[in-house]
């Protein structure tokens, strides 16, 4: 595989981040890309959608794709009905990330050693393309 261009440090290091729990793992989502966190909603599964897509919901009238983050990352424990959905901006589209829990907001530099691994929504979407369609 050829070397892929890296983004100029858009990850959690240089700004505030939202720490979320996915299955038993923790990840940091750059807060600048986070639109809002909505409580658990009825996700309508879409037949034939890629495997990591939980389904769609309506967010104020806009049909929004919800991604089962645990599934895309290959972690056990997706599917809690009361899990919240984090709405993020990816390439001009608002996409829902179905996570296990939303923990807290961390500030830049406050605790670099304990900062969890960054979670880049664009990369999640990129990974979706490689999963089989259901």
């Amino acid at each position, binding site marked *: *595989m*050829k*070397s*892929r*261009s*890296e*983004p*100029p440090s*858009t990850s959690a290091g240089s700004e505030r981040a939202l720490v979320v729990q996915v299955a038993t793992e923790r990840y940091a989502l750059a807060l600048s890309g986070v639109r809002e966190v909505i409580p658990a*909603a*009825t996700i*309508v*599964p*879409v*037949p*034939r*959608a*890629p495997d990591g*897509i939980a389904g*769609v*919901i*309506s967010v*104020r*009238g*806009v*049909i*929004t*794709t919800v*991604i089962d983050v645990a599934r895309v990352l290959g972690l056990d424990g997706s599917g809690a009905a009361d899990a919240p959905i984090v709405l993020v901006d*990816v*390439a*001009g*589209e*608002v*996409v829902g990330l179905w996570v296990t829990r939303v923990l807290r907001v961390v500030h830049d530099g406050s605790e670099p050693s304990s900062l969890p691994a960054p979670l880049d929504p*664009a*990369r999640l*979407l*990129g990974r*979706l*393309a*490689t999963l089989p*369609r*259901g």
Partner: protein
Amino acid sequence: MDRDRTSEEFFVEAGRLVEALARELLVLEADVRAGVAAPGAFDAMSGHGRTLESLARTFGADVVAGLAHGVGELLDALGRGAVASRESALDLLLEGVDDLHRLVEADSAGDAPDVHPARYRAAVADALAGGSASRVVVAPAAGRGVGESDARIDMHKLDALLGLVGELGAVEGALDRLSERLRTRSADTALAREAQHVRRRLRRGVHALREGVLDARIVRLDRVFSPATLVVRELAVEQGKRVRLVTRGGDVELDRAIADGLYDVLTELVRNAVDHGVESPTEREASGKNPTATITLGAEVGGGRVRLRVEDDGRGVASERLRVLGVAPEPLLGGAAGDGRPGDPATLVAASDRATGSRVARGGGLEAVRDLVARLGGGVELASEPGVGTCVTLSVPLTLLRVPALLFEVRGMLFAISRDVVSSVRAASDSDVERRSGSELIEERGERLPLCRVADLFSLGAGGEASTENGKQLLFIDVAARRAALLVDRIHGHEPLLVKPFGPSLGAVPSLVGAAERGADRLALVIDPASLIEEIAVSAAQLGRTTP
């Protein structure tokens, strides 16, 4: 290995988009410097920019995505006339497209050139800072009557408004129930009557508001035709060809979301026609043709859809060659585009191609067209005769909104299908189904129709009730004279629905066109009849073939 193929596809596609950007920039540069750019001209480029950006993001090429974002912002600003200096904005645009070119070329070769999207975007922000100090003069293209003033209303704002209208509708429903309770339970009839009155006023208001917002979404096709006109003119000059472009039906009105989606499609098709269809004037004369070629862009409306035709009288293509390219001639995606013939081997080629999701890079242009049109809920047909010309026909819905729909349930999931295609409904029974060589048929009014079990089609799981048809419903559909029966669990009646497309992240889902809100918090998945009937026909034909 798979990833390598994927990334190669990305570079092929990205290269195509960057080329398109560069080409259109060349076309526009002179006009913009002179202060006469056609309306919509930048929108076409913005479309390429956005496509490139999201493509790059999907494949994790973040530098390309970052740069494409900057270019897109600049293009949008140019389109709005919101740049400090046209000259410097153009220079910046050229620089950006140039860098994109270098990036895509270098990246496919495996090394990373020195490009900094952050710096570029800062420069773009600077260029925009001056705001409306000088406006790009948007003039109608020469000789064409695109005089309509185009108040650029942001689609997202319209959609947000429409969402709010939907919420108001829900409030109205709640008020309705409340006033009904008041009427039945309260002795105060005057109060109940007043509540009814208030509800009716609210309903009228909501209705008028919805109509108004929907109206603002309607645009004329001219908007899509004019950039195509420019492309034809410029390419013809560049390649020393003589082309006359005829447009018909520019006054057709359609949903803005569809019109915007058609930009890239039509531009690609006319480019294809000039590049590959139209011969040089001498070659044309030698074969007894008029040295000036004619490309016709036509549109006509019927059955809630608009049929667009891009026709040239060029050299045409043999159908074998199209198949080698991975693009099957004639009905590619659908019955609704024309009189599809299910038995046509070409249909099978197209469908198996679709089923395996294979993408052949060489047929890229037309493949991309097919994908884009599919995303709009439409179909593509291609007819070509060597020496005579090529005709590509697209059929897209006039709107993605307000479809009178029939709702049905399968395995607890709610689906909707346009009522226009439903010819009748009746209860199913075991004795109905006739099994013949692997496929299942249902007799209806003397005709044997293929049966489609919706639960199986969408792999919704057996649920322990697959063995019997009793108690279920049959729904007969008729799409452009092709008929089939759908087996569903329950019919929920019909109502007008606002059909909304899925987000790009979901990709195209065969036989589904989007979702519609039903009531406060339920979504119905909306079936695309054209793609469904095609799928049914293909699977029936395949079964018929494999079992002697």
